[in-house]
C-alpha cells in the first residue's frame, strides 16, 4: 500500500478547513484511506539518523496517508484534495479536457521507430501549457512521478516517465533505440557528456539509479528520445537529459511515458496530466501530443449505465436512483438518472483507471453511503457443516497422543536441504523434495519431506528442559508426485521422538501400539499391523523397524543414528517414529 506524505497545513489550506487529527483520521477511514503517521521531517531524520543530524530540519507537521494500491489518483496532494472535496460535496469533480494547441498550430509529434520494438515498444506523450509552478507544486510534481514509478510503473520496468521544458526543445520528437556507444549526452545533474555505456558504469554506484540499470543493461539497443535538433530528451527508463530539465520557471511541460505495457503507459500519463493540469492557465486542460503509431484513448471518459436496483441489491440498501447518482458523483464518478426508469448513467473519468466493472461502481456507491451505515443482516443460506476427514482424524489423534504423555510441537514446513538430507544421512536426490527457486536464506530451500528434523531442532532449542523430552507433531510434508496437476502433493504424517539418557525404543514402540489401539487396529501381518527389522541410514543399525499396515509399509521407528543426533547438536540417545496417517482414513 503506497504512502503519501503531505504537509498538514498545506492540505488543510487546500481543503479550506482545519481538522483535529482525530477528525481527519475519521474522514480518511470513511473514504478508505488511513492516516498512518503524524510526523515531521525533523522527526524522521532524528529517528533514522539521530538527533544531531536533525538539527535545523523542518518541523512542519507531515501527514503520512496510506492509499489503496489501485488509486493512483490519490498519490499526490492535488489528487487527495480533489477526491476529498468532491466526497465532502464541497466541489464538483473537474472535467478534464483534451485540447489542441492554440492558434491552430500543429500538435507536438512523437515518432516511434522500429528499433524500440525489442526493448521498450510503447510511448505516449502530452503537453501541459502555461503551467505555473511554485516550490510546493514543483515538489509535488516530482514526488508524484516517483510514486507512480514505484507503483503502477513497477519500478520503471513497465513504464518510465520523462518530463521536459518544452521551450528548450523543438519537435517533432523521435523515440528510437541505439547501441549504447552511439548514445551521447549530458544527463540530468551531471557536468559533462557521457556515452550510454559510460553512464551505465557511472550509475553502478548511484544509490538511486542503480536499481533501474538491469531493465536495459543487457539489451543490444538502448531506448532514447531526440528532438528535431538531435538533443537527447531522455534515455528511458534510466535518466533524462540535462538540456530539457524542468525548473520552477518552466511554462510548458512536455511529458513522455515509454513502456512495455501500453495500457499502463496511458494510465500513467493520464495521472500526471490530470493531477497537474489544475495549475494550467486554463485549468484541467491537456494538450495531446500526437504519437505516430497512435491510439486515441488518452484522457478518455467512459460511460456505464446501470440500474439503481443493481446497486441496492448488491450493497443491501434501498436508495432512489437519484440519491445513488448523487453518492457516485461524490466519488468523482459524475452520474445522472437517465430517461429510463431507475437507470443511472455513470461517467468514469481518466483518473479512475481502477473502475473496470459495474462492481467497482457499486463499491464507490457503498463507500459514499458509508459502510458503517449499511444495515447488517444474516443471510438465510442453509448448509450442513462437514469436517475434512483428514483433519478430523488429525484432531482426534492429537488429543490422545498428548494424553499419552507427548507434547505437541509446531515446526516449519520449509527448511534447508541439509535438514532433510545430509543431517539425516540421506541423499537429497532420493528424497522427492520440492525445491524453492528463490529462497532468501538456506532455511527456505525446500519443503520438508519429513517431520523429524523439525522435532530434533525443537529439542536442540530446549535442551535446558528436564529429561525425558517427549514430542510429537501431526502435520503435512510435501513430496513430488507426477500424478498431480502441479506435480507435488502433501502427505499427512505423524512423527514422535523420545529423548533421554537411554534410547527408550520401548517407549516409542509403546506409542505405536497405543496409536494402533486408538485406531482400532490389531497386531497381525494379514489385516493388522506389524513391524519388521529394516535398514534405514537415519537409524542406528539393528535398531530400526519398518511399520506395515495390512502388508503395506507406512513408516519407520527406531533409535536414531548417533551421527544424526550430533548433526542436530544433541547429546543424548533418541528414538523416533515417523508414520503416514492417510491410510487410516
Amino acid at each position, binding site marked *: 500500500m503506497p504512502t503519501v506524505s503531505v504537509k498538514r497545513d498545506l492540505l488543510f489550506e487546500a481543503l479550506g478547513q482545519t481538522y483535529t487529527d482525530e477528525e481527519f483520521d475519521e474522514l480518511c*477511514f470513511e473514504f478508505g484511506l488511513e492516516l498512518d503517521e503524524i510526523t515531521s521531517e525533523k522527526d524522521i531524520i532524528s529517528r533514522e539518523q539521530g538527533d544531531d543530524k536533525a538539527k535545523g530540519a523542518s518541523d512542519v507537521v507531515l501527514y503520512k496517508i496510506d492509499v489503496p494500491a489501485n488509486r493512483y489518483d490519490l498519490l499526490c496532494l492535488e489528487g487527495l484534495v480533489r477526491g476529498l472535496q468532491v466526497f465532502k460535496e464541497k466541489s464538483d469533480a473537474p472535467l478534464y479536457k483534451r485540447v489542441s494547441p492554440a492558434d491552430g498550430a500543429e500538435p507536438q509529434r512523437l515518432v516511434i521507430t522500429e528499433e524500440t520494438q525489442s526493448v521498450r515498444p510503447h510511448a505516449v506523450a502530452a503537453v501541459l501549457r502555461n503551467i505555473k509552478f511554485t516550490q510546493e507544486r514543483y515538489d509535488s510534481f516530482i514526488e508524484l512521478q516517483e510514486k507512480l514509478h514505484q507503483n503502477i510503473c513497477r519500478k520503471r520496468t513497465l513504464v518510465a516517465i520523462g518530463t521536459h521544458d518544452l521551450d528548450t526543445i523543438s519537435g517533432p520528437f523521435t523515440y528510437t533505440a541505439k547501441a549504447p556507444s552511439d548514445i551521447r549526452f549530458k544527463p540530468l545533474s551531471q557536468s559533462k557528456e557521457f556515452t550510454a555505456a559510460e553512464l551505465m558504469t557511472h550509475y553502478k554506484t548511484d544509490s538511486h539509479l542503480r536499481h533501474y540499470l538491469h531493465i536495459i543493461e543487457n539489451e543490444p539497443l538502448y531506448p532514447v528520445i531526440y528532438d528535431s535538433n538531435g538533443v537527447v530528451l531522455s534515455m528511458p527508463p534510466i535518466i533524462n537529459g540535462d538540456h530539457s530539465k524542468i525548473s520552477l520557471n518552466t511554462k510548458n511541460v512536455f511529458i513522455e511515458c515509454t513502456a512495455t505495457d501500453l495500457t499502463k503507459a496511458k494510465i500513467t500519463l493520464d495521472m500526471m496530466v490530470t493531477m497537474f493540469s489544475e495549475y494550467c492557465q486554463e485549468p484541467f486542460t491537456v494538450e495531446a501530443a500526437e504519437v505516430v503509431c497512435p491510439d486515441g484513448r488518452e484522457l478518455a471518459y467512459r460511460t456505464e449505465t446501470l440500474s439503481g436496483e443493481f446497486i441496492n441489491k448488491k450493497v443491501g440498501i434501498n436508495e432512489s436512483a437519484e440519491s445513488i447518482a448523487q453518492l457516485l458523483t461524490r466519488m468523482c464518478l459524475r452520474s445522472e438518472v437517465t430517461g429510463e426508469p431507475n437507470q443511472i448513467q455513470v461517467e468514469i473519468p481518466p483518473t479512475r483507471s481502477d473502475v473496470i466493472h459495474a462492481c467497482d461502481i457499486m463499491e464507490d456507491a457503498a*463507500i459514499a453511503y458509508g459502510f458503517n451505515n449499511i444495515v447488517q443482516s444474516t443471510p438465510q443460506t442453509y448448509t450442513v457443516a462437514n469436517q475434512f476427514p483428514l483433519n478430523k482424524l488429525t484432531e482426534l489423534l492429537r488429543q490422545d497422543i498428548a494424553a499419552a504423555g507427548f507434547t505437541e510441537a509446531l515446526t516449519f514446513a520449509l527448511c534447508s536441504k541439509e535438514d532433510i538430507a545430509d543431517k539425516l544421512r540421506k541423499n537429497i536426490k532420493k528424497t522427492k523434495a520440492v525445491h524453492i527457486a528463490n529462497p532468501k536464506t538456506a532455511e527456505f530451500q525446500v519443503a520438508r519431506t519429513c517431520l523429524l528434523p523439525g522435532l530434533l531442532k525443537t529439542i536442540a532449542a530446549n535442551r535446558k528442559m528436564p529429561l525425558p523430552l517427549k514430542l510429537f507433531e501431526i502435520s503435512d510434508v510435501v513430496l513430488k508426485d507426477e500424478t498431480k*496437476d502441479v506435480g507435488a502433493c502433501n502427505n499427512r504424517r505423524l512423527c514422535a521422538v523420545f529423548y533421554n539418557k537411554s534410547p527408550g525404543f520401548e517407549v516409542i514402540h509403546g506409542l505405536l501400539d497405543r496409536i494402533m489401539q486408538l485406531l482400532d487396529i490389531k497386531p497381525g501381518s494379514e489385516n493388522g499391523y506389524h513391524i519388521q527389522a529394516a535398514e534405514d541410514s537415519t537409524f542406528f543399525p539393528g535398531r530400526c523397524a519398518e511399520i506395515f499396515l495390512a502388508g503395506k509399509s507406512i513408516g519407520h521407528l527406531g533409535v536414531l543414528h548417533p551421527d544424526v543426533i550430533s548433526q542436530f547438536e544433541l547429546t543424548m540417545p533418541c528414538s523416533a517414529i515417523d508414520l503416514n496417517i492417510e491410510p487410516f482414513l
Partner: protein
Amino acid sequence: MADSGLLDSVLRLLEKAEDGVDSQDVSAGLGVDHQLIVGAVKSLQALGEVISAEQRSSKHWELTAEGCEIAEQGSHEARVFTAKMASGKVGFSKAMSNKWIRVDKAHEGGPRVFRSVESIEDMVRDKLQLVQKGQWDRLEEKDKNELKKRKLLAEVTVKSYWIMKGSSFSTTITKQETELTPEMIASGSWKEKKFKPYNFSALGVAPDCGHLHPLMKVRTQFRQIFLEMGFTEMPTNNFIESSFWNFDSLFQPQQHPARDQHDTFFISDPALAHEFPQDYLERVKKVHSEGGYGSQGYKYDWKVEEAQKNLLRTHTTAVSARMLYKLAQQETFTPVKYFSIDRVFRNETLDATHLAEFHQIEGVVADYDLTLGNLMGILHQFFTKLGITKLRFKPAFNPYTEPSMEIFSYHEGLKKWVEVGNSGVFRPEMLLPMGLPEGVTVIAWGLSLERPTMIKYGINNIRELVGHKVNLQMVYDSPICRLDS
C-alpha cells in the same frame, strides 16, 4: 524426630517456667548440647500448638584457648618477669616495653637480663579473669579490643530460642502421623491418631502428561466456531499451487507486485504445473487480456507460461478458487459455506511478528443475492464468538474482491481501533469465468491465526510460538483456549 525423652525433659522444664525459657539455659540446665535442644524445639513446633518459640540472638565475650591459659597461669610478660617461663619472644618484648626488665649487654660472659622493678601487677590476667567470670561489662572497650587483637578474647554470637507454652500445651505428647495408611483404615486406629497438618501453600506435584501446542488449541477453537456456524471444511492439504489457481483464477494480473520474486516463493522443481481445465483457462485468459462479463479487463498480454509457474501458495484463497470452480461444475448450483485454516507462505522480510509461513483463517459463503450487509452480518456473528462485538469497516483494496473491507475492532486496552481481518465480495471477473450463475454472490473474509493467538497468550515474539525455537515451558504452562472469555 528428636529423642522423645529429651522432648519430655524440655516440656517439663517449660511447665515450671511461667514466662518461658531460653534454649541456651535449657541446654545448660539439662547438660545437653544446644544443637540437640534446637532439634527438640523444632520437633515440638511440628506438633502444632504445643509450644511457641521465637528465635533470638545475643553476643558475649569468651576467652580463647590462649586466653584461658593466661587467666590461669599469668600473662607471658608476667611469666618472663617471674622467670617461670623460658624467655618467649612475646612476653619478653612486652615485659621490656612495660619496663619490668632490662638487658645488660655489656655484662661479662654475654648479655644478661635483670628485673628493673620489685614487683608487678599482672593486669592482663586480671582482665581475662573478669571475662571468665562473665563480667566483661566491667572492661573498657579499648581493653577488649586490645585483648581481641592479642587473640586472647573473642566475641561470640549465640543463637537461641525463647520457648513458651503454646495454646495446647501439655507435657505428654502423642506422635503425629504423616499419612493415612491402609492398616489404619483396616484397624480403625485412625480414630485415635493425630495427623500432621498439610502445608496447603505449597504447590502440588505436576501431573505427568503431554500438552497441546497453544496455536493448535486456538486452531481447534476456530474450527469449532466455523462448524457451529454450519461451515464445511475445505481440503487445504496442497501447499504447492500453480500461479494459475493462486493468482490468475482470482483475477490478479500477471504484473501484480504480489507475483514478484520478492513476495512469493516460486518452485524450481517441479517448476511448472502441467494440467489445467482448458476451457476455463481460456476464459480466464480472455477476461484478463480483453475483459468480458461486463469488465474492461486489464488489457495486457496474458501468458500461460506465467500461469504455469508453481509456487508455495500465498493464501488459502487458491483452494477457495478450486472449490468454487468445482461448485460451478455442478449441474445445479447449491449454496455453500466453506472454511479453512492452514499454512500459507510469503517470501517476506522476517521480524518479531512476521514469519515466512503462517496460518490463514478463511471463510467463504456462496449464494444467490448476498449483500454487503450480509457480509457484515456474518462477520458480526463470527467475531462475537471470538468475544469481539465492537466492529467497524473501512474501504480497502484487494485485487479479487470488490467491494473490499478491512475489519477493525475496538481494542479496550490500547483504546483504539485495530485491524482484525480482511473481507470482501469476490469480483465477477473471478466468478463468472468459473461458470457460476450470474446472480450468485460470493462473500469471504480472512485473518491470521497467529495474531489472535499471540494476543491471547501474551506472546510478543512469534518465534517463541511457531517453529523449533518454541519455548516448551510456555507450551507446558499454556492454559486451555476459550476465545470468548
